[in-house]
């Protein structure tokens, strides 16, 4: 199949910076973030929407970056873990991940942090089982998940205190 390399002009905000680009209409958001902008924290683990390693925020909501076209981000605000790190929003969770070794190879980690962050927005205090269920769209092949659950649980409790 020979897809014509048509492009469209898009304008968006990525990690607080205005970006304008001509992107191939078939290019997904992660290839755009990684290739055109150099935000390499969004990782491609499967490119079919299962592993979750490509998770980024689109207008504040976590999305599968491999199932989102770059042109769909036109006019939107996109955040990756690089931007979230700079803002300090998840500094406590990031520190807890390090302290508990809730990551090994680190390939799933940026996406795991962004997914876990949704639990902080909800304002509720999820049970351990609810944390596990919430994280079940993000595959980690190294840790066995327990330390990730522990880290999220600890920060939720600390923030609620």
């Amino acid at each position: 199949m020979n897809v014509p390399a048509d492009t469209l002009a898009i304008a968006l905000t990525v990690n607080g910076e205005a970006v304008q680009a001509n992107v191939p209409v078939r290019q997904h958001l992660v290839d755009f973030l990684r290739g055109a902008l150099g935000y390499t924290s969004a990782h491609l683990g499967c490119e079919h929407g299962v592993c979750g390693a490509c998770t980024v925020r689109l207008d504040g909501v976590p999305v599968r970056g491999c199932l989102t076209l770059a042109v769909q981000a036109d006019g939107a605000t996109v955040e990756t873990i690089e931007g979230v790190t700079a803002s300090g929003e998840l500094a406590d969770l990031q520190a807890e991940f390090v302290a508990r070794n809730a990551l090994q190879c680190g390939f799933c980690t940026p996406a795991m942090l962004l997914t876990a962050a949704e639990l902080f927005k909800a304002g509720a205090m999820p049970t351990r089982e609810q944390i596990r269920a919430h994280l079940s769209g993000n595959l980690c092949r190294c840790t066995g998940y327990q330390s990730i659950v522990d880290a999220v649980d600890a920060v939720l409790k600390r923030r609620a205190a």
Partner: protein
Amino acid sequence: MSLLGKSVPRQAALRHVAGRGRFVDDITLPRMVHVAFVRSPMAAGVIRGIDTGAAAALPGVVRVFTGADLVGVCASFAGNSAAVPQLRSPPEHCLAVVRVCWQGEPVVAVVATSRAVAEDAADLVQLDIDSTDPAVDPLAALADNAVLVHPALGSNLAMEARIVSGDAAAGFAAADRVVTHDFNFGRHTGMPLEPRGLIADYDPAADTLTVWQSHQAPHQQQDVFATLLGIPEHRVQVICPDVGGAFGVKLHAYPDELAVAAISKVLGRPVKFVADRLESFVSDVHARDHRVTARLAMKNDGTMLALEVDDIGVMGAYSTYPRTSVGEGMQVIMLAGGPYRLAGYDARLRFVYQNKVPTSAVRAVGHPIAATITEQLIDFAAHDLGLDPMVVRRKNQLVAADYPAKAPGGVRFERLSIDTCLDKVLALMDYDALRAGQAALRAKGIYRGIGVATFVELTSVGAGFYGPAGINVSAQDGATVKLEPLGRARCAISITDQGQGTLTGIAQIVAERLGLQPDDVDVLAGDSRATPYGGGAWASRGLSIGGEAAWAAAGAVRDAALELAGLLLQVAPDTLDLRAGQVVNASDGAARMTLAEVARIGTFRQDLLPPGYRPQLGATRHWVPREEPYSVANGVQASLLEVDVETGFVKLLRHWCVEDCGRVINPLLVDEQIRGGIVQGLGAALYEHCQYDEYGQLVSGSLLDYLVPMAAEMPDIVVAHIETPAGGSALGAKGAGEAGAGGAAAAVWCALNDALLPFEARVTQQPFTPEHVLDVLAAARGRQGA
């Protein structure tokens, strides 16, 4: 306080949580081009023709390579071993030339200015392959009229091996009872989340090849590229940057990766290939895929007499290069029955070729199979004899007086802790209370199972393995430690770290020797040019072998620093010590000068030193196990689960592991290694399955079809340790990386069959899908009805 045994977090973790990991696909080089492969769509066939015209004409395509184009660039290769001369391994090419032998075998490489264009062009390549019947049934593979994977070999038998010790026949003759079971260990794969990938950059002006590769063993790959591409080894540099999980999958030399290096040599520019997930499933090595029939001879009092094992392992289409694919089967017959006293042992292994993805070493090579056979048969025997399974274990397991012991399969056990690990896990899980609870719940129609499985683990393979096999894989590792002029240290080491945290352990070891903090030590690894030659990461060797090298190198630097300090302070060096960044009196700990001052003078002010004296604040040391062939680790895992006999679903409730990896250098990191390994083993037990249809097509080749454990299905895991230091070493560490994966599935086998006891149903194949559980329940009902 010693840094050894302290839970120090990882420096590398700080980068990863900030999104600053640097994986192969994150690297871009000037004039870099991208490869997409056209892979065989069929399991077996003969290549009649390949039309690349339309692909080559697509704008953005640089060149299209067939197997014939690369035959003169990359030599053929075969996974042979001088130590296993009966292994028959046909030559393989980086791109198929005449025949295709598995669905997914690379046939054509399309090079373009972007991966997207390369994929577009790959779709335009026309393969003309005469499809032939594939060999897909392992049990039919050895029949006289079997379809042959490699007709030139005359049969599908890749190799056969037999290990006999004692008198098995006498044991079976004397038995009061013989338990027999058929085991089918489903094919699964390591599936690191970051797919395999590399950038090869050949510079024709200098005749140098630089490769950035997501791999565990940079020095092995330096040797492979140098040998197969005909480039002097000192002009080949292999760099392994951050590696997103490996688990043995990234230990081999894959044809597609060799093709990428060959293409770079032809084009004289950097070439990148990163596998996508779909091609990973049909090209990464798979593991297990063994059918075992095993028999255990017992006395009525629970004494184990003899064990017989008949294992048919599926090698897939080829024996992998350069390490071969025999390891899994060999370790099965070397380790089955290992933790127990057996008067007779007879184990046979046959490896068969099939038109499927090659199998090879993946985390815990052979260990899960050996442990499962042994532990499951003991449970069945205990049940048949009316004994508690733990009573049978205690009666037969190795105890302190048995060491050094020799396993039935011939492996020497210097000293294990089989009995104390069992004691500890039973106490941790409160075994008796769980049994009581199980009985009470059964009365209410709730079926829980308790499984306890002992395992032994061959870690830190010594000099006697790959060397005599004629395979250029280093059993030795090396470390260079340097004292930097302002008092910090650097260590360049040949072991590698794919997230295990090994390099943090190395920093702890170096810091301990030099009286520094781990943060004061920078560790460089994953670079065949910049580090001493060594093995990398395989068989859980990082801390137990690399740690010894680092300990020795840092010790030499420590000696040199104290010698220099002694000169400056005009005291004997052995009256001094290094603590907290200071040179202190060994006697009273009083600070005499800073280590930084020693380093500064040693680096910049040799003019202050006695005539002829030259400081040596850097040292390289190597270490290889010589006293023992392996550092044998051991442990016990236990599983509590519940099976829904209406739906066949298995729910894991809790899991325990007591593990003995010798001295624990960093408990935090070791525990997390164990937990991660356990979850991979649980995935193998319950979910993960590379399923082939009768045409040799992989039908579970996406993450929608190949199920990997997610957070919700996994139980909390209790981890504890017994520490039996490894002999012949300074630190006493044994490998810890494979223990989790080595014992988890065996515990689940035992637990599930324990849960099914009231129905007299026994599972025979992993993964334990609901369908299989319902099948064995229905079969049991049928037997009882008949």
